[in-house]
């Protein structure tokens, strides 16, 4: 099975959890957002403790069944708290 390497960028507490601004993730091609999230939660169990965790691609929230394509930049969005 071919793999794609994806760049993951994190903000807020997600950045603290991964210990840096970004991390590379190897995914089987055809993987969905849900599968990428599961990989990240396996690698960083602290994500399970958050009130929520969403992913954005191209500056838009994406649904969990969205297929991840080579070249996508995933952005981890932990619970927002602006205002």
């Amino acid at each position, binding site marked *: 099975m071919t793999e794609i390497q994806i760049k993951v960028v994190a*903000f807020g507490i997600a950045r603290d959890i991964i210990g840096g601004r970004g991390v590379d993730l190897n995914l089987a091609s055809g993987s969905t957002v849900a599968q990428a999230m599961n990989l990240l939660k396996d690698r960083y169990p602290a994500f399970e403790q958050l009130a929520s965790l969403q992913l954005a691609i191209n500056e838009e929230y994406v649904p969990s069944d969205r297929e991840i394509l080579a070249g996508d930049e995933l952005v981890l969005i932990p619970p927002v708290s602006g205002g």
Partner: protein
Amino acid sequence: MIEITKDKIEVAKLIAAVSDEGAGATDVFVGTTRNKTSDKPVVKLDFEAYEPMAIKELQKIVNRAKSQWPILKYAISHRVGVVEIGEEAVVIAVSTPHRKAAFESCKFIIDELKKTVPIWKKEIFEDGDVWVAAHP
């Protein structure tokens, strides 16, 4: 006007920005940093934003507001970086022909901002810090 800024927000500038001859009302929401969270003293706050997406999400909220109320002009400014106690963290100004729409649309914008806009707030205490709302 929508902006994310490191600089102090000047409320008067936002009010001026929504000035309109058709306006019968201007409503302004000013969110300021509070000196405590459930009785624990807060020293300052540190805001972080995923800026391009934050601007996009704010624009979506404004578009939804415009479809519900006759908004003449709007101005939104949100701070990033360290915000000292008592300073404005967010200011929203809306002008409409009549006051009801101004009140309602301004409330809608701040309520929705808190739900979807990728901005994060860290409360800094004497003895540590915590990302607000991160944990259930």
